[in-house]
């Protein structure tokens, strides 16, 4: 009952005219950003975050904007997957497998409308999941002390490096770079300036916005130079616009299953929309068996990954809101956004700032409805945006990014730092280094060091406290498992076909 009460309070926040408008704008921008190949939710959130701050939006409004953008991106990615066969963001890769064949056979309208519907169901179920589970998790997490928090953050890093796939060492290195960047500036405990090189501009640390924009906007522009996507293959929407009852009935069970799986995967740190949609696609393919035409334009191959990627986006809010430890790059950027307002997400937020937490949750419901409404009838308008040439788009992205960075401190130094970090980020990405762990490291760095120091202060430097409580022991075991198990599984997967071949 408490939950219902808080949720109603949340709707009171989310339904104010200002927040409604912000959610609608966010949903609209998010759909466009998600749709543009090369730009995903993390870029969208990164570019809009400094603007939200510069426009002096109150924290809950800023968070609603960013959340709506995030949800919108997961909706938008499918449009270019279906019409162009180029996924608009990483979560929509699987959608292209069946969505594009459907579009080629004249069913573009059906593929777009039913994927919007399943996106809606996915996000709706996951948001209900947040309402049910987040308060429980937050209450449990209140018992965490500094040692548990330190272990939890190590667990989050282990997840994000273990699940990043082919290059765990590079993912770990990215996290270390992020953590190192976070130590620049004044150490508040001792008054020592670290790694500033005597530069005044660095004395209060590197601005979060500068890092995020550099790494996710400037370096993205450089990467976009190489992927010359031709918008010539764009399929025009013709024929039936809306799915029929038969298609709805056929896809509904898979949509519901995928939504639940997507939510669970989204809650886990490190895993995200990409993994969730790949998992559910192969799950539905196996369940459909012989009567499935997966890969040739099966409707179920469109609905399952779309339900899953939207559900996992919503699910990834759970660790961020309840533990204050984001599990994905995009939610890490949101934690950074909150830190601009001097708000540290965590279990205490549920009791100290219910308007923020529940306002956000309620606005997820509202943004989701808005997204469904704008995505079905207006899909033709969005598909026009895909014809926007890069020569106009890219300078626009850079200009808006620079405005965001400049609006914080109004210094050329920050802009130069943005360029430098962007170029460094580009080189690192070209070496196959993922950037999500870097941003997670940068966001968590200070928190991690503080918790480590606080824990060791309790025991006067005795390291034993880090593995004292059952919770920390469990988290450490989980962390080790996350690092050790995936490579072993890959090794096994490589051996089995080798063994059967001989």
């Amino acid at each position, binding site marked *: 009952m408490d939950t219902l009460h808080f949720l109603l309070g949340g709707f009171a926040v989310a339904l104010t005219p200002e927040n409604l408008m912000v959610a609608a704008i966010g949903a609209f921008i998010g759909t466009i950003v998600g749709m543009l190949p090369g730009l995903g939710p993390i870029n969208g959130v990164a570019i809009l975050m400094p603007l939200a701050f510069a426009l002096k939006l109150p924290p809950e409004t800023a968070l609603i904007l960013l959340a709506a953008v995030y949800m919108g991106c997961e909706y938008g990615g499918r449009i270019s997957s279906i019409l162009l066969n180029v996924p608009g963001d990483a979560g929509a890769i699987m959608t292209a497998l069946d969505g594009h064949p459907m579009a080629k056979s004249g069913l573009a309208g059906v593929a777009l409308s039913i994927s919007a519907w399943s996106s809606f169901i996915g996000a709706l179920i996951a948001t209900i999941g947040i309402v049910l589970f987040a308060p429980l998790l937050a209450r449990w997490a209140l018992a965490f002390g500094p040692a548990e928090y330190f272990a939890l953050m190590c667990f989050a890093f282990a997840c994000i490096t273990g699940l990043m796939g082919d290059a765990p060492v590079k993912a770990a290195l990215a996290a270390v770079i992020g953590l190192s960047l976070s130590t620049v500036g004044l150490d508040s*405990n*001792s008054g020592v300036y670290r790694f500033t090189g005597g530069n005044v501009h660095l004395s209060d640390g590197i601005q979060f916005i500068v890092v995020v924009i550099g790494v996710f906007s400037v370096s993205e522009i450089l990467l976009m*130079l*190489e992927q010359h996507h031709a918008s010539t293959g764009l399929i025009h929407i013709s024929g039936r616009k809306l799915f029929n009852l038969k298609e709805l009935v056929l896809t509904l069970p898979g949509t519901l299953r995928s939504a639940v799986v997507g939510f669970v995967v989204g809650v886990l740190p490190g895993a995200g929309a990409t993994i969730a949609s790949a998992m559910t696609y192969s799950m539905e393919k196996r369940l459909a068996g012989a009567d499935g035409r997966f890969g040739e334009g099966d409707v179920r191959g469109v609905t399952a990954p779309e339900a899953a990627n939207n559900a996992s986006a919503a699910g990834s809010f759970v660790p961020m809101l309840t533990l204050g430890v984001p599990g994905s790059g995009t939610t890490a950027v949101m934690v950074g956004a909150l830190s601009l307002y001097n708000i540290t997400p965590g279990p205490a937020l549920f009791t100290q700032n219910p308007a923020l937490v529940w306002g956000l949750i309620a606005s997820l419901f509202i943004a989701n409805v808005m997204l469904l409404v704008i995505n079905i009838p207006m899909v033709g308008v969005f598909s026009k945006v895909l014809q926007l040439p890069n*020569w106009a788009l890219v*300078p*626009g992205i850079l200009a808006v990014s620079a*405005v965001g960075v400049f609006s914080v401190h109004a210094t050329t130094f920050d802009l130069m730092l943005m360029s430098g970090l962007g170029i460094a980020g580009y080189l690192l990405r070209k070496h196959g280094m993922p950037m999500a762990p870097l941003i997670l490291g940068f966001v968590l760095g200070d928190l991690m060091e503080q918790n480590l120091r606080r824990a060791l202060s309790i025991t006067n430097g005795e390291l034993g406290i880090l593995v004292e409580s059952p919770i920390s022991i469990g988290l450490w075991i989980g962390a080790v498992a996350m690092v050790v198990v995936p490579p072993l599984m890959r090794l096994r997967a490589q051996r089995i076909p080798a063994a059967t071949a001989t």
Partner: protein
Amino acid sequence: MSDRILGAACLVAGAGMAWAAHDYAAPISYEPVGPRAFPLLLAGLMALAGGWLIARPGPQGFGSGREHFKSIGLVMAAVIAYAALFETLGFPFATAMMALPIGMAFGGSWKQSLAGGVAMGLALYLMFDKLLDVVLPTGLLSFILGGR
């Protein structure tokens, strides 16, 4: 090959961090762990990862994109110049100047890129500075637009 360069860079960075951090000490200490431990730990991890990359470099090198070296260099230079001249030239002018090379690197003609840049510089300036109250530098155009 290029993984080894990355690894060597990490070793150098780790050593540099350790050297810079080795004498960080609080003038008066209230806690057992001072400002030095965490940076030193990170320096160690950085060097460890660097050593790993040198010992076991991955199969893939720099990847694709060598054919784009020229345009990448051009865009990098344009980004740095934009950042450096943002305040001096002012937002509308700097944006137009930036959009020309970057637009062309992304396949626009010089006319398209320049026209797009001028329009974008003015439109974004009016939107942010006048409408949304995000103050932007006017630089060279301050005699028309006011501000600095």
